[in-house]
């Protein structure tokens, strides 16, 4: 009798385990999907939030971002390292404008876009110098995590120091592009003149 009970208990525990798995499966099926993103290291989470902050602490010349402009456009050029981490930023309001995100895989498509912030992905390393030369006089905030980006006339570079994401800002390049960078942002950055 006792043996039968043990056997029955064992069966019940097996059934419970399987049932739990089925329950999880059901949860998956009925659960509404939340924000989708590829599994990223936290590195790009922080960089995504920085991009949002740039829209708050950088001013564009009135000629390119006049008062009646409704959007601030963040463009990601090349292989998208953010996954969907920029989704929470999309449609947020900043400087009374709505943030939009554009993913541009091919540099040739860039000319047709209007970008206020251009994040140049590491996949574009081969064309970065040429790209910076072309955009140098344009009111575009160029941002990248390519090595030596700010030293090569990029405006803001993400660098990893002591496990933290730090900024290098090339003020000369920013002025050339007609952009004004707030002192608050400069306070936490290394300024490259």
């Amino acid at each position: 009798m006792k043996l039968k009970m043990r056997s029955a208990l064992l069966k019940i525990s097996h059934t419970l385990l399987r049932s739990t798995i089925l329950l999880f499966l059901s949860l998956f099926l009925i659960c509404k999907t939340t924000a989708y993103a590829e599994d990223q290291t936290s590195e790009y989470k922080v960089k995504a939030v920085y991009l949002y902050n740039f829209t708050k602490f950088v001013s564009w010349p009135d000629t390119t971002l006049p008062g009646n402009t409704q959007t601030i456009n963040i463009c990601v050029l090349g292989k998208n390292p953010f996954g969907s981490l920029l989704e929470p930023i999309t449609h947020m309001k900043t400087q009374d404008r709505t943030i939009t995100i554009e993913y541009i895989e091919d540099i040739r498509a860039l000319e047709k876009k209007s970008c206020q912030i251009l994040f140049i992905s590491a996949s574009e390393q081969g064309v970065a110098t040429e790209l910076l030369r072309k955009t140098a006089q344009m009111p575009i905030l160029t941002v990248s995590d390519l090595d030596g980006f700010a030293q090569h006339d990029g405006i803001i570079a993400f660098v990893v120091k002591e496990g933290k994401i730090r900024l290098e800002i090339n003020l000369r390049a920013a002025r050339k592009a007609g952009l004004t960078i707030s002192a608050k942002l400069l306070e936490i950055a290394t300024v490259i003149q």
Partner: protein
Amino acid sequence: MLQLTKNSWTIVICLSALTIPSLSQAKLADEYSVEQMLGMELKDLADLKVTVASTGPESIIETPAIVSRYDMETLSAMGLRTLKDALSFIPGVVLQDHLVGQTIVMMRGVYEGFNQKVLFLVDGVPYFMPSHSEIPLSGIPIESISHIEVIRGPGAVFYGTNATAGVINVVTKKDTNNSRLSASYGSNDKLNGGGIINHTFNEDTGLSLAFESQSDNGYDARYPAYPGYPGGTINKAEEMDSVLAKLRYKKANLLAQAFQSSANGLGSPRQINNVNTLDYTGYLLHADYGDTTGNTDWKLFTDYNNFYLKYTVLDRFGSNIPGGYRFADDGEQNFRWRSGTSANYHWSKALSIFAGVEYEERHTGAYQVYNAVTDATTAVLMPEFGLSEWSFYSQIDYTLGEKWRFLLGGRFTDNSITGTDSVPRLGAVYKIDDEQSLKLLYSVGFNTPSFTQLKADNLPEVQGNTGLTPEKIKTVDLAYSYSKGNNLFVANIFYLKAQNFIVSDRSTGTIHFYNASDFDRYGAELDYQGVLARQWTLFANLAYHAQGNSTDETDTTAIYAPKMTTALGLSYNFLPRQSIGASMRTISHRAASASLAQLNLDYQYKLDRLTLFATLRNVLDEEILSPNIGEYNPREIPGGDGINFLVGAKYTF
């Protein structure tokens, strides 16, 4: 010897919680969602520690230990898609099958068949079988694993028993990660399904639920002939079901995990027609609560871990009657219960003092020999047994100027069976500059004898030894570390001295356990991890073990440790959506077994939320044979299929 009850222990915890002060720590970006970070001040954002590629949030060059950290996702892209494959990529770590089916973890050439000499942690919580010290290598849903951290060398000061050769910490994903479903199909009709659902309700509350289930028709495993044992082939398969749930509420965390797994091999008397199955069943419940008061971080924790095995062989009694071993009451009495508290007091920026106290009970029900036809118990191999243990541990961490960091720590243990003991830890880290460091480390690990080693009593089969003393491994490491951007390189040499090493002797036909003579070993390890131009990821490591594959009267297990292991992994993201990857792991020859080289290839295609993958494993079609290290003889044991494939899909949401 301390004689406190559970009630008095509860009082100690509560009083500790009231009296412990606390500190502020570097915040980790992993712990916040993008939404949460959007509300941060710029200076707080700039102060967040991030995970970059495979290097951890705490810079590995500053950590006073020899640590390897690998992201599961990165290893998967190199064709290493199981926890066992991932662990076998760590420098100097070899995983191989025991004759009866379980997986033995060898680290720095140190191993034992039924008393693992590595400690297995899930999110920092110890998980092992009280009777046999087995570890749940198939018990953690693969989709729940964020990364693995492996300390090579003893980690006893923080973790206590079993952390002699090293510590494996499986770190699970946060609830702020994405949810994912996965399914795969492979050779031998291996079907695997799993997933994780993460949900953050608000800043204070988050939930993760994960599962994995695998069925397997098995591969043809060839056992070469061995004196007294004709060769032959059997079907070898591994199946499992596992679930894991985590709930975070404010500063409290709950973890619940359960699993069942089944593997097979050759049962006693190890003849080719005598196939056994080895079933593991276990669950872990853990709760902790931590906070910061003043300059002190403090934490209270408790966990309950039930874990047992059942072993059934086709011919247990010599007349084709199946039977085997099982625990009374279906393993209900096989548990570990642990509770404790710890506090880290930050005296100043340069000095912190850490202290903790733990109480643990380990218990096992009677280990029975049974007849599978009648279900009758025919003998008791080991009686019901239990022990209790108090531990007190402390560590002083002092930073001198910009360059030096010193550690001094120790653990005092009062065990109801083996008595009192203490182990020290010393360390010095010299930071050459922001990118380089030198470390000199000394630590001692101990392994309390497992219950079977102490109490097994079923002649002529096995005889435990109540006179066994805990074994110790004293290790000195000298390491150079270099870290710049996404590149990490660590080179270290080690020297270890094993004392009272517990081994089994089967020469008389009866399994006896004894403390062996002391022996020394030394070796070197190189470990490189790099992300090149964001598209290439390259991992390479090598471990050299001077005494590997050598015969020594005082070190009888060295012959089964390889002199050298290497691992190379590479993945390349080409075009925005595709990646290819490869990994190669080699183990040099030992005893009668030839060297091994396992090459895996991997291809991934990402289509919005869907990732499709195809993996070819053991592309060189090597016959994977290893010496029978669980029984200390050169008989060759199969440990995996020839060339085989896996195709699957993952849906992220």
